């Protein structure tokens, strides 16, 4: 089959690879109908996530038709149309029982590697490094899905792929970003990043009752999408974000701040950017946490900083004094997608949210290298690429 593989830093290649096989009794094989490139795939492309190997099939946002199931799978059969959540979860461990699916204790065969970097291991993730399992990803014609009874959600109506595909990651991730803000009537939520996750966090914050949402980015076309959802916007290359947020919120700061940017943030001051960029390039720190630092400094006293942008390892100059002295709550995590699948599918069905608004391009799988290039460099007003195998 054809699959999009990591081929070294800044390079992906569509290669011919063997078709996947059932390896465990609870596996299913899915013929992929749509798959997307995630902003977090760019961290892999740029070489900032450790333990990615040449030849790894990328992609953790995918859906399709079940073509084969292992002997222990009871809830799915060949022909079912499913969306597959990006974290792999067994459904039986302590974490899964607590609805913390992205922390499944049984789904990372390389838990020992993750422990060395992070202390304990989170769940395995499709196509997202060997430290997170070494699972082949979904940017391919077929994908193997472990624990097929637990993760995939069946789509039994005629909703098009573009509306349900993002149940795999960016919709629930954006939703969890807003959910963690504990939104109360009258709250103002600030969201850093107007990419797919940020935009869906904006929409989710309104859905959960936010009075106002302010979105921070530097790309006009993305900010216009946020505006279209009802958000006020801030271009950080034009305005001082901390001052502006203070002025916009009666001097108090947003009630909660969502970091939907993560480890490769940018900074408007070249010297500040160069400082962390140089440390990242020499691996003195793995992550450039500008958005996170700013979200912490901006948040009102006693507020929540909700981190859904991906971080890989270590950050420097972390304003812990601000967090501690101002009673901030930091909430974070890879999204526990399985927890949100049913309720969000319901919201899509009733028309309360339409995640297909993030799609800017639909291309054949063979164009994956061009799509990565375009997405990385924000060419042609790119916000989200859907690939069709």
């Amino acid at each position, binding site marked *: 089959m054809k699959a999009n593989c990591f081929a070294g830093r800044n390079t992906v290649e569509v290669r011919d690879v*063997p078709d996947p096989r059932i390896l465990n009794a*609870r596996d299913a094989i899915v013929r992929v109908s749509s798959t997307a490139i995630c902003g977090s795939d760019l961290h892999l492309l740029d070489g900032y996530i450790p333990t990615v190997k040449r030849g790894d099939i990328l992609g953790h946002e995918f859906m399709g038709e079940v073509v084969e199931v292992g002997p222990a799978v009871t809830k799915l059969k060949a022909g079912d149309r499913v969306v597959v959540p990006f974290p792999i979860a067994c459904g039986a461990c302590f974490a899964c029982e607590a609805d913390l699916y992205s922390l499944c204790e049984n789904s990372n065969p*390389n838990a020992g590697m993750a422990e060395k970097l992070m202390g304990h291991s989170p769940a395995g993730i499709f196509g997202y490094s060997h430290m997170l399992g070494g699972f*082949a990803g979904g940017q391919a014609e077929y994908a193997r899905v472990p624990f097929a009874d637990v993760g995939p959600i069946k789509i039994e109506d005629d909703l098009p792929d573009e509306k349900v595909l993002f149940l795999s990651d960016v919709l629930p991730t954006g939703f969890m970003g807003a959910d963690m803000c504990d939104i109360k009537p009258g709250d103002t939520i600030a969201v850093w990043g107007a990419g797919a996750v940020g935009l869906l966090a904006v929409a989710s914050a309104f859905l959960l009752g936010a009075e106002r949402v302010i979105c921070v980015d530097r790309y006009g076309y993305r900010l216009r999408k946020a505006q279209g959802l009802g958000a006020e916007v801030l271009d950080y290359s034009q305005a001082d974000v901390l001052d502006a947020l203070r002025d916009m919120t009666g001097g108090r700061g947003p009630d909660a701040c969502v970091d939907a940017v993560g480890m490769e943030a940018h900074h408007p001051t070249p010297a500040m950017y160069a400082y962390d960029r140089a440390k990242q390039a020499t691996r003195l720190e793995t992550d450039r946490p500008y958005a996170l630092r700013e979200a912490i400094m901006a948040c009102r006293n006693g507020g929540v900083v909700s981190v859904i942008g991906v971080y890989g390892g270590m950050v420097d100059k972390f304003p812990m004094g601000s967090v501690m002295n101002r009673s901030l709550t930091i909430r974070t995590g890879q999204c526990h997608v399985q927890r949100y699948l049913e309720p969000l599918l319901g919201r899509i069905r009733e028309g309360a949210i339409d995640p297909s608004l993030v799609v800017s391009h639909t291309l054949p799988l063979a164009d994956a290298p061009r799509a990565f290039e375009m997405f990385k460099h924000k060419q042609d007003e790119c916000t989200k690429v859907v690939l069709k195998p």
Partner: protein
Amino acid sequence: MHTDKYARALGWVSLALGAAQLTMPRTITRLSGLDDAPAAATITRLVGGRELLHAAMLLGGRSPAQWAWTRVAGDTMDLALLGGAMRNREGARRRRAGAALAVVSALTALDTVCAAGARRRPQGPAEVRASITVNRPRDEVYRFWRDLENLPAFMIHLESVRELDERRSRWQAKGLVWEAEITDERAGEHLVWGSARGSGVEAGGAVTFTDGPGGRGTVVDVVLRFGMPGGVLGAAVARLIGEHPEQQIRDDLRRFKQIMETGEVLRSEGSPEGTYAVRQRGQRPAQPVGGRP
């Protein structure tokens, strides 16, 4: 341990000496009466670098005493250098070289005592422990483990275990076959086993099962003892190639947990054998294994 503290003190001596030799080699050569030799400053710097290596080994390691012998080797070299230098010199320089020789001899004595102390340490079989919480009732978890023939399903280095009777069993791993015996057992709580006398293999273990707090499954605590082929050196080599015993036993327990909670050991394309220390180092690319039959 006492010897380790002693060894660490020697590490600080190495650090001070090495720093002095590197930063002011000429002062050192003058003090030891060698300042007339053209290569003396260079040699002193080299010796200083070596001292820093001793310091790194003695100050950086968790059990520094085992490295004290490297200082003894260094001392021997210094004694030879200084001895040779003293023989070729006269007058004040000869006296200074003699004094330096006396200082180094004293240090040599201290180092030898330390190295000898480290050697006397008992060299029993290696012992590793690990702990995991399994989200299943204690009786079920115990029963699976008590059926020793299940062990190879999650202890990757075991090829087979055959039960001979209630207490005795025959184990096979890496071309070795030995007989083991259950030496203590409290149903549902505790199991201790060891290789039988005269079996030629030194291996055994103990596992304890307790209820997790607040009904959170079963806590499994394991201690394994095994004689490492090749002793300490064998263990170090094994670590280098990824056979880290601590990680091995943790991986064994992860597989045990996976079987108890999900029915089998989970495989990925990068780790098709499932959780396995050596494979975690040498991953396949995350691409389907083989082809569709």
